[in-house]
């Protein structure tokens, strides 16, 4: 280290560098300088994280705690009227209500409908497009094209396809009564199909990049040992792709739990609340019922679920990532 231990940022930086060297010194030497250095180190650390902490504080932490706190209050339908402190009562009432349980079931059902199907389809397309063929790039472009479609556009396109009067599906004979999106038993499937289609692009890209990171030598070695394409897929591709698949499952689930656009455009949570997923429930509670307190509780519940999903991802993924080369 060439800097002397002066005050100021540069000095602190220098000290930070010396801190590494300190590890190599004897305990006695270290003990002598430890207190002062440690303090400087902490000061610098604060300084460095301050900007991001400020931004996170204003836009993430403050709203989050404020939201959590709002859940303790029974709020009036219009601002300016009295609010009443009800503490955890609101949390327990809302989270045990039939509406919430139904909405949670719908949301989980929606995730189960969309995530596995989306990943299987994405993987299938990725495996197909991973062949070294002339013109395969065109297919890759087509398969990944839905990534460039907005939810609103996808919803309108499918809404038209499903329409009982002018739609394509009724025209080819798929014409349930009442029509798909007005049908309590089918509406969730209808919205799920749109979501699968819409997320297919990103899943395809994820899976393709996963496939390309698998070393060719493995396949070649297996081929020499006499393994056929199906066997190689199950024994080599799939295990090595597992981190990617797992990542897609977790991220896909988080997205599924945050689905809003297609519901708002096509079904508004209906019919009979059969597509009333958590995000839409929150939106409706907030906008139609003007019930800020209840909406805050629901938002915290949604946060808790996505938080757990993220934790799982971090824990499991850390152990499972395959560093191919």
């Amino acid at each position, binding site marked *: 280290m060439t800097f002397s231990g002066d005050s100021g940022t540069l000095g602190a930086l220098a000290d930070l560098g010396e801190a590494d060297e300190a590890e190599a010194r004897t305990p006695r030497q270290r003990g002598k300088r430890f207190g002062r250095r440690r303090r400087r180190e902490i000061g610098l650390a604060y300084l460095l994280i301050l900007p991001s902490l400020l931004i996170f504080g204003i836009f993430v932490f403050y709203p989050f705690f404020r939201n959590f706190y709002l859940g303790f209050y029974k709020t*009036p339908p219009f601002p300016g009227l*009295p609010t009443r402190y009800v503490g955890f009562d609101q949390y327990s009432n809302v989270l045990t209500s039939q509406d919430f349980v139904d909405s949670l079931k719908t949301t989980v059902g929606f995730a189960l409908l969309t995530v596995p199907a989306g990943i299987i389809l994405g993987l299938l397309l990725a495996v197909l497009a991973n062949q070294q063929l002339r013109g395969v790039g065109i297919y890759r472009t087509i398969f990944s094209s839905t990534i460039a479609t907005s939810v609103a556009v996808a919803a309108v396109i499918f809404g038209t396809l499903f329409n009982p009067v002018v739609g394509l599906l009724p025209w080819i004979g798929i014409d349930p009564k009442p029509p798909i999106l*007005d049908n309590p038993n089918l509406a969730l499937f209808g919205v799920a199909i749109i979501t699968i289609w819409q997320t297919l692009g990103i899943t395809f890209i994820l899976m393709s990049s996963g496939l390309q990171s698998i070393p060719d030598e493995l396949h070649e070695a297996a081929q020499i040992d006499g393994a056929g394409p199906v066997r190689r897929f199950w024994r080599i591709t799939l295990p090595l792709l597992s981190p990617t698949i797992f990542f897609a499952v977790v991220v896909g689930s988080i997205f599924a739990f945050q689905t809003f656009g297609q519901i708002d455009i096509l079904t508004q949570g209906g019919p009979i609340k059969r597509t009333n997923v958590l995000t839409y429930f929150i939106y409706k509670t907030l906008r139609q019922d003007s019930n800020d307190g209840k909406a805050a509780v629901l938002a915290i519940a949604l946060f808790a679920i996505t938080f757990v999903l993220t934790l799982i991802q971090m824990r499991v993924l850390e152990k499972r990532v395959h560093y191919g080369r």
Partner: protein
Amino acid sequence: MTRSLRVLAIGVVGALALAACGGGGSSSGGGGSNASALPACPLSALAKATKPVEVTFWHALTRANEEVLQSLTDRFNASQADVKVKLVNQIGYKENLEKFRAGLGGTDLPDVIQVEDTATQQMIDTQAILPAASCIKADHYDTSDYVQRVLDRYTVNKVLWPMPFNVSNPVFFYDKNAFRAAGLDPEKPPTTLDEVKADALKIKAAGYEAGFGLKLDPWYLEQWSAKADKLYVNQENGRKARATETAFDNATGLSIFSWMNDMVKSGAAKTNSADGPSSYDNLLGIRSKNVGMTIDSSATLGTITQVFSQGESGGVDLGVSPMPGPPGKGGVLVGGGALYIVKKSAPEKQAAVWKYLKFLDDPQTQADFAAGTGYVPIRKSSVALPAIQQLWAKTPGYKVAYDQLISGVENIATQGPVIGAYQAVRDAVLAGEQEMFTQGKAPAAALSTTANQSNSAMQEYNSRVNG
């Protein structure tokens, strides 16, 4: 590093908690809706103010209706130099109310706002409204020429809250040719629900997909309850005190639910959603000869007449008649929108708005507005004016909507319900109907579920207003 982060995080949380506690206080509530304690209407403020006083009007009219409103407003602005009205289109009633609510917590508010008839209780609960009754009293304004039911619709606890403006109600649409094909008298449309069912089955038997296009609009349960002279919610339809429970879970309600169920199950009726792209399928069904009749708002008359007259007639001979309903001496409810004066505006702006509202409700303005939009004129003297006479001669359907409004008794049943959680009750009614149609639920069970869901929504709303 981890420890220092944690220390800092605790500090931040502590500060936030303190800040949050500071913001927790709130103003005292309990604004009375009592006739004796009306806030004052600052009429004299306009004379003292520097002219012109500019006021902003958030409205929810679109297309042709918006153009008519704009031209009437231009006429008002040109007719005098004291007040200048600026229109802001908020696209729909829902959006308008949402934006108003957001504005109540900040500063972005209009001076006058157009709100749907269902939101009366909510507007009262904002405590941000100057009742029209205040200005009527201060200005000695004569309301005897108004259609009584229109005034009644917006009167809660003897106080008229908004100025009524655009009024519509449901009418019966039918294809006379479908009636002829089914061997029915085209000049004798059904007047009761039972007749609708009998005629619908005959039309279906004549080769139509269904006889009746049933739009799944919870509005009709409210309308049919009023027509049967039955209350929709307790506390005198919510006009004496805040309604706490529904009143439609009775014999009339059951007969309506059973009728709808029979209609759908027998194939006599074909349903369509009241929201989204299929909300006009019942009317378009008449045009494409899938169904022979339907019920819809009189506000659609203009568009429907226009669409049906484009190109070939398609063999449709459109008839319009009063809405059939259950037996009873009641009448149709007033639907549509009304205009609220915002109390948070400066006094001269409130007075300026009052002047503008008097213009909009003037018999001549109302006649021109009705002729241009298809809404029902709310002044009795408007009807004699040439604009309305010409309109009625050309499209007799418009007269049906007006005549409905002045027939039947005037009482709390035909005043209609006032509910804080109006939309939540409508959602419950729609869900109940759909459970009956698609899940095989019995009408009585569906009705009682609907009532229970509505009650809890109403009580939830009330508990939040009462603090």
